[in-house]
């Protein structure tokens, strides 16, 4: 199997006035052709930083300080912004968390599709427009013609997210990166959107990297999973292996944190809040233990 994306020893830092905060401590993983890889972990564990480092969407003060990202034979971290821009949207599609804050509120959907096409040198004509319409239809948008002519605020959350998905897939990217694509949606809509995503990615020969904190999503949709904790990948492997025989204490705790009735949940010491240089007691992931006191 070929590797679509290969990430090696990725390190990302945030240069704050109070010192350098290390957000990623050498993250390595890969996404192969036709597979869905999930990244799970608690808030602040570095999931979103990983995808922003890969796509170079990190805003200052964030900075990738070391590592290697290879995508389709190209080393992304060495590419100048001009070439990186051409990869974004065309070779790597990005699906945002909240469609309403991602879509431009004052521009017609139609125009937003056209802007994406123009940005990648694709001529905007009737056939391009009908391609966008078909794409909208295949993401499950009802009455795509009307949606195309309208604005984002006229849509429901699920419909808006489908529009975002259609935009991310518009220019046929090989890899789709989805940052918590269903967090902002109703539970009932989440599944429909995820089904659509799966249908339009792996089943159409693409790969997808999906960030989520929903273990159910990972179990149902992903082939492989990366478990992140404090800027490290503490465990990765096939979903079936990791979820059935978790090796790392954090994974065990994460799996145990799925709410079951009459359970007292164990937890791992240390918090994800404010990792900083002055506080060396950030737990070493290899030595994390479940807290004895509350182990059930």
């Amino acid at each position, binding site marked *: 199997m070929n590797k679509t994306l290969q990430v090696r020893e990725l390190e990302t830092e945030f240069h704050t006035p109070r010192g350098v905060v290390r957000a990623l401590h050498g993250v390595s993983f890969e996404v192969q052709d036709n597979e869905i890889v999930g990244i799970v972990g608690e808030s602040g564990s570095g999931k979103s930083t990983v995808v922003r480092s890969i796509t170079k969407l990190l805003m200052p003060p964030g900075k990738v300080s070391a590592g290697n990202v290879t995508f389709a034979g190209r080393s992304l971290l060495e590419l100048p912004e001009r070439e990186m821009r051409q990869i974004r949207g065309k070779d790597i599609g990005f699906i945002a968390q909240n469609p309403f804050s991602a879509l431009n509120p004052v521009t017609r959907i139609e125009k937003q599709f056209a802007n994406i096409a123009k940005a990648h040198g694709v001529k905007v004509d009737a056939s391009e427009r009908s391609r966008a319409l078909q794409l909208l239809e295949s993401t499950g948008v009802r009455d795509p013609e009307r949606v195309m002519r309208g604005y984002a605020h006229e849509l429901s959350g699920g*419909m808006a997210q489908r529009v975002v998905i259609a935009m991310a897939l518009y220019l046929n990217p090989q890899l789709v990166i989805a940052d918590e694509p269903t967090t902002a949606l109703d539970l009932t809509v989440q599944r429909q959107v995820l089904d659509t995503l799966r249908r339009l990615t792996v089943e159409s020969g693409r790969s997808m990297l999906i960030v989520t904190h929903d273990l159910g999503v990972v179990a149902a949709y992903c082939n492989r999973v990366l478990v992140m904790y404090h800027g490290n990948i503490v465990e990765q492997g096939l979903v079936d292996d990791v979820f059935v025989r978790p090796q790392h204490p954090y994974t065990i705790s994460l799996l145990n944190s799925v709410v079951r009735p009459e359970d007292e949940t164990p937890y791992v010491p240390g918090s994800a809040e404010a990792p900083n240089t002055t506080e060396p007691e950030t737990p070493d992931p290899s030595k994390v233990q479940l807290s004895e006191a509350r182990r059930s």
Partner: protein
Amino acid sequence: MIRYIISRLLIAALLLCGLITLSFGLVSLLPGDPAVALLGEYATPADIARIHAELGLDLPFWERYLGYMSRTLSGDLGHSLFTGSSVSSEILTRLPNTLIYLVPGLALALIIGMASGTFAAYRYRRFADKAFTFWISILMAMPEFVLALLLLFVFYQQLRIAPAPIGMLSSAQITPPHVTGSIPLDAIIAGQWGTFSSILGRAVLPIVTMGLFFAAPFGKTVRSGLLQVLQSPQIEFARACGLRPAQVFRYALSDIRGSLMTYLVLLFAASLSGAAIVESVFSWPGVGGWSLDGVLKGDVPVIQGFVLIMGSTSLLGYVILDTLITLLDPRTRSKAVAVAGRRQRRLGATPAAIS
């Protein structure tokens, strides 16, 4: 949509009545008796009573109020206590003189502020941004008369490329025949292009003063607004779609254009009152210097006239602004149209579209 605009205008008319009431109240708020101000310390009671009768100050409150209201609404703003000239005709003559440098000045501020603010945001924390922030803080700390004097020093005294600050017309120019009373307008009507271009030439320094003075706060607003928006998920998604940097900036600007327009109207209102100082420096025969004179002398009708003209100009600005903002944003536009009676069917509102 037309009904929406009419409703805005009705509110503005109400506010205008409030403004007239306020300007009427000024007379009673101001310390001292206008008759005493006019006649001096040693006026006899008989003289004072005569002036009171002349000014209508002996009438009961309501009669005075209604009389003032109806006179103002019909365009009669009274006469200056000192020169006896009609306030309305003074304003009509002088307002174009003020607008001839104020509007280009603000346009200049818009262009400079927009360009430099955008550029600084684009080069955030790099050299250009730091240079911008440095110059902005210097400009912001500088009162407009200092700026005007500095410009005069450089361009008039040192480089000798700007005309002397002695008003709008030099004595060498022929005053155009009286038609409207406003010299620039009369010059256009009479076809005296030499006179008109000389006026424009003399307006350059006031325009630059206004432009630089208001470019500073405007540019700062553009920069900080853009910086905030550039961190937003909307811009991140635009970048993630690979949009060109120029396009990304257009998206960001369209997001903050409402607040920028509001700020511009605020600056316009502020610039009207700031005009007095610039006009004093350049001996410009506009409304600013004239009203400053009126304020210093306690010339009540002049002050009232200035308050009214400033207030109603700002009111007009806000009505236009409000309408523009509402109509430019599709989110409020559909609502405004719906409020105005036309029912807009929204996609999200139909039960079938939920999911």
